[in-house]
Each structure stands twice: as structure tokens, then as C-alpha cells.
């Protein structure tokens, strides 16, 4: 087996050291670029990235808010990164919140994670106001951009004001972050009853990003399509690139991602299967516009026969992709869910290599990633240097430095998720002889959607059972497309025979649908139940009284 040397990387103990060193190494090189609606670029270089973060950190120290928990409730933006880095550099903890959650869930998460500072974007200000009114722990609300009513201070104005007062600089020197200390609390998917607040340490996150770089080469420009409140977006989409001095294009508006990508022209895109499939569709449309689809099909078949993807199509693809967002695209980093192999194979013919990785929030998040030189489309790659993987009863278990500090204030839940030093991922898989990790399924009952979102089925089933008409319910992912994760959420109900005795099947379905519609109205789109079925027999159960899901 051919040996490949580890690629160059840098490891840091904490985010203050990282920001200092990155500014020294890469100074005036572009660090992060965002685009506004008019397509105008806003770029901060490595020196400014550090200055912005340190200024905010000093302001927090000056205001007596160092070391506090700050909930970030915002879409992607430059200020999101400034806030995150500023809090981390001044020894605080950022609570990263997925803004797709319902208002009540976000309020509960901020309270559960003991947030004392809120940093909200203008579109989330209405919720920030509500949290301030309901949660007496909140000492400060800051707005990225500005508050049209002028009630709350803008983050930039707060930073400026405190810097002028000048008391923060000395205070910041005293609150140097320690390497093991928690830098962020990130919620896993689910509602407050099932979402777990994961504490990740300063050096754990930095080690994980540094480790990925030993395997990955991503060119000069990386475009992150993912929300920063997920560790996959933050660590893999942004931090990895910044450690290496690469320019990051940050998608700040999901709706305009393709336009943003067209302005940026990345070499690497970091994405989930949903977006990769959209890129695949787009690539095909460019190719069909430029030459006939049949001709492309024939060439691809011939390339398959020769075992040399992108050999014969190279020139055609180059012409088809000229001036589009795919012009310079060489790699797509895929994670969060399973990607159809067909999509990855097609993209390979177009000269775009998909490198699959695997991780979960608790692991900061990457466990394995494919290397550019010996990638495989049927595997999620090689285990990162700081991790060891073992397989127990088909379950993947992980041990190593970047693992989480535990679930916040939930020692029992933390203990349950470990077997000694080994973290139990709940994913099933195996390692092949070359050390490549393969995922075969899940121990936990989770539906994984194409966008990487996970739906805990038991939680949804409990909601269904609140309706007296429902005796038993089973929520599952009904296949709705080609790929494995192309699913819609469906529910199979066994009605309560007493409650349903005078009803026709149609009436039962109608009542169930009405209830589901009400339930859906409270859920984010990806969690909504799209299909309701009834059955006339009880579910078969295992000896431990669990529904035999695979039989349905």
C-alpha cells in the first residue's frame, strides 16, 4: 500500500494563539469574504480578523462580561465570526443556536445553557427582545447590524464605546483562555427534550481542524455553504481553511448561494448532500447547454470503460463551466449525511472530486475524511491522527483528545454516552484493510435527511400519541427519491380501537391529518410529517417491547 506523508498543519492550544499566529503568518491576505444582495464583496484579511475579534473580546472584558456564556442567534455573517472568535479569545463560551428551531426551543436553549449575553441578527431581534423580557439572567443584548428602534446597542457601537473607555485591554490580558476550557456549547439536532448541549474545548476544536489538514488539500479558495452554528460548517468549512491561510467565501444567504459562489469561484466547496445534488443538477444543465446530453453520456460511458474519469470530457467541461460558479471547482467536501454514489461519480467525470468525511458534533466534529490522493467514493475516509476508532458490536466508538468536554450540566447523560474513554457514536460501520471507514447504519433511531438534519423518531412518536385516537405510532423515513437519504417523514398509526369504533377509515385519516397539520405548524420544515398511514393490526414488538421497525 502506498504511503502518503501527512500534509503540513499547525496546532494551537487556544483561539487567542490561533488568531495571533494567523495574523502574523498571513497578515494582509484575504481571510473571509461575504457578499451583500447587490453582489458587493466584503473581505476581511487575517490582520483584521484578529483585530475585530480582539476588539470585541476587550470590549466584553471592559464591560465585565468576560468568561460569560454568549448565545449567538444569527444567520452567517462576518459579525458572527467576530463574535465567536472574540468570546473565545477572551475566555468566554459561545452558545451556538440553530435559528431554524421554534422560538420556544431557542428560548429554552438560551436558558438551559446559562447564557448571559445575547448576540442577535436584525431578523432575530424580535426573539432577542422576548428572551430579555423573560430571562432575568441576560445582562446584555447586542445586535449585529443595528436595532431600528434604537433600544439595544449594536455590536460595533458597543465595541467602539468600550475601546474608547480603554479598560478592556488590561482585563483581557488577565483572562487568557486555557486549552481544556470549553469554548462553545453546540446543540445537537432535536428539541430541548432530546437535543444535547455539547461542550467543545478550545484545543479540541483546533486540534480537530488541524488534523483534517493533514489529509486535505483544498486549493486557494474554500466556499462554506453551511450554517456556522453547526460544527461541520464552523470547523470544516471555515477554521480548517483559516489555519492554512486560505480565503474563505462564506455563504450568508442560503437563498443566494449559487450567486455567491459565482462571484467567489471556489476551488473547494464544503456542503451537505442536498446542496451537492443541487450542484450536480446545475453542472448537468451547463453541460447540456454547451453540448448535447447524449454526447456527454457517451463520453462518460467511455471514460468508465477506460477507468479514467474526466479524461475525454475535460475540454467540453471546461467550455461548459467557463464563467460559472463551477469554473475553478476541484473538490467538494461532503458530510452530514449519505451522498448517492452516482452523484459523486458523475461529478468525477466533470473533474470535481467529492471527498466524503464523517463526524458528529461530540467529536468536534470530524472523525474521518478522505485524502485527495487516495479518496474512495464508497467510504467516509481515514481516521484522523488524534482519534482511535474501535468497533464494538458493529458500533463505531472513538477515543482521543478532540472529544467533547461532556454534555453541559448533564453528567449522567455524558456517562451513558461513554464506555470508559471510548465515546459511543451510535453509528454502525467497519474499517477495511486500508483503514478506510465505512458506515452501514445507525444504532439510534434517527432519520437523517439530505441536508444533514437529524430527526429523532421517538420524540415525534410521543407527540403523535398525545392524540387520544392514536394507540401506537411509528415515524419513519419514507423513500422519495434515488438516494438513501432522499426521504420524507411519514407516520404509521395503529388507531385506538375504542376511540375509533364508530369511525370509517376515511374519518380516522381525516382527523389524524388535521392533528398532523397542527403539529407541523409548530415544527421546522425538515421535521414536518408529509405522509400519514393507518394499519389495522398492532405493531410487532421485540422482547424489550420496542417496535420492530425494519418489519414495517
Amino acid at each position: 500500500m502506498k504511503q502518503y506523508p501527512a500534509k503540513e498543519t499547525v496546532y494551537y492550544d487556544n483561539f487567542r494563539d490561533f488568531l495571533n499566529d494567523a495574523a502574523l503568518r498571513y497578515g494582509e491576505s484575504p481571510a473571509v469574504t461575504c457578499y451583500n444582495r447587490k453582489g458587493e464583496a466584503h473581505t476581511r484579511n487575517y490582520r483584521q480578523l484578529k483585530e475585530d475579534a480582539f476588539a470585541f473580546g476587550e470590549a466584553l472584558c471592559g464591560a465585565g462580561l468576560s468568561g460569560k456564556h454568549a448565545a449567538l442567534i444569527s444567520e452567517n455573517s462576518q459579525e458572527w465570526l467576530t463574535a465567536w472568535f472574540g468570546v473565545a479569545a477572551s475566555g468566554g463560551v459561545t452558545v451556538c443556536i440553530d435559528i431554524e428551531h421554534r422560538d420556544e426551543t431557542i428560548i429554552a436553549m438560551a436558558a438551559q445553557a446559562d447564557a448571559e449575553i445575547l448576540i442577535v441578527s436584525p431578523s432575530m431581534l424580535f426573539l432577542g427582545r422576548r428572551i430579555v423580557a423573560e430571562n432575568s439572567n441576560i445582562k446584555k443584548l447586542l445586535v449585529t447590524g443595528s436595532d431600528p428602534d434604537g433600544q439595544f446597542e449594536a455590536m460595533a457601537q458597543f465595541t467602539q464605546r468600550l475601546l474608547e473607555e480603554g479598560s478592556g485591554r488590561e482585563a483581557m490580558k488577565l483572562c487568557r483562555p486555557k486549552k481544556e476550557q470549553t469554548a462553545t456549547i453546540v446543540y445537537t439536532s432535536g428539541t430541548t427534550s432530546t437535543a444535547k448541549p455539547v461542550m467543545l474545548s478550545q484545543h479540541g476544536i483546533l486540534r480537530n481542524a488541524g488534523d483534517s489538514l493533514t489529509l486535505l488539500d483544498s486549493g486557494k479558495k474554500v466556499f462554506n455553504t453551511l450554517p456556522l452554528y453547526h460544527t461541520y460548517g464552523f470547523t470544516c468549512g471555515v477554521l480548517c481553511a483559516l489555519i492554512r491561510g486560505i480565503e474563505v467565501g462564506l455563504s450568508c444567504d442560503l437563498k443566494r448561494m449559487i450567486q455567491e459562489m459565482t462571484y467567489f469561484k471556489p476551488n473547494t466547496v464544503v456542503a451537505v448532500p442536498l446542496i451537492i445534488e443541487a450542484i450536480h443538477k446545475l453542472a448537468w444543465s451547463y453541460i447540456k447547454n454547451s453540448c448535447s446530453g447524449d454526447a456527454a453520456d457517451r463520453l462518460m460511458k467511455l471514460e468508465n470503460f477506460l477507468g479514467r474519469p474526466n479524461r475525454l470530457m475535460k475540454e467540453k467541461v471546461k467550455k461548459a463551466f467557463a464563467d460559472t460558479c463551477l469554473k475553478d471547482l476541484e473538490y467538494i467536501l461532503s458530510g452530514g449525511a449519505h451522498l448517492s454514489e452516482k452523484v459523486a461519480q458523475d461529478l468525477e467525470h466533470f473533474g470535481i472530486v467529492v471527498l466524503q468525511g464523517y463526524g458528529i458534533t461530540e467529536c468536534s466534529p470530524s472523525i474521518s475524511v478522505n485524502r485527495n490522493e487516495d479518496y474512495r467514493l464508497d467510504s467516509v475516509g481515514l481516521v484522523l491522527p488524534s482519534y482511535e476508532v474501535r468497533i464494538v458490536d458493529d458500533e463505531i466508538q472513538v477515543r482521543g483528545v478532540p472529544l467533547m468536554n461532556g454534555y453541559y450540566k448533564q453528567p449522567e447523560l455524558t456517562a451513558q454516552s461513554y464506555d470508559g474513554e471510548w465515546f459511543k457514536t451510535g453509528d454502525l460501520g467497519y474499517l477495511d484493510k486500508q483503514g478506510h471507514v465505512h458506515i452501514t447504519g445507525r444504532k439510534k433511531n434517527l432519520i437523517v435527511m439530505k441536508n444533514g438534519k437529524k430527526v429523532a423518531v421517538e420524540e415525534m412518536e410521543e407527540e403523535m400519541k398525545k392524540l387520544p385516537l392514536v394507540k401506537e405510532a411509528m415515524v419513519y423515513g419514507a423513500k422519495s427519491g434515488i438516494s438513501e437519504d432522499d426521504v420524507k417523514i411519514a407516520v404509521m398509526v395503529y388507531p385506538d380501537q375504542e376511540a375509533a369504533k364508530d369511525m370509517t377509515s376515511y374519518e380516522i385519516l381525516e382527523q389524524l391529518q388535521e392533528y398532523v397539520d397542527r403539529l407541523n405548524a409548530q415544527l421546522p420544515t425538515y421535521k414536518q410529517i408529509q405522509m400519514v398511514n393507518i394499519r389495522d393490526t398492532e405493531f410487532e414488538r421485540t422482547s424489550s417491547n420496542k417496535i420492530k421497525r425494519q418489519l414495517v
Partner: protein
Amino acid sequence: MLERLEEIIYQVTGKNNLNLTDDTDFVKDLELNSFDVMNIISALEDLYDVDIPTRDVWQLRQVKDAVEYLKAKGVEEQ
């Protein structure tokens, strides 16, 4: 507005002859994925020059939700 919406959906997804009604559900009836819905909303933003925050997009499930949302933003039906 329905005609314009139908045209936009065609441009974004290639689906036509949709016979949209107020109750048409983007995900359930038209089988669009969240990426398609995002692109459609983005086209509406450009057409009517309004800002629609990403989080609000998830509330726009049916045609009537989108129409009412735009009206609330001051867009007049033409």
C-alpha cells in the same frame, strides 16, 4: 401573482402546468426540496424588491402563505 409564481417555479425547477391554487403546498404538492423553495423565494425577493429572512422562508408552506407574506411587506397584487 399566481401566474408570476408559476413562471418562477418553472424557471427554478423546470416544472410547469402546475395549476397553482392558494392551498398548493410547495413541499407536499409540488414535491420541491428546501433548496428549490429557497431559490423561488430568492427570485420573489428580486422581483418585488423585498427582504425575506431565511427563517421566515420556513413559514411559507403554501402559495397563500407566500402571497399573504408579500402583501404584508407592501407588495400589491398586479
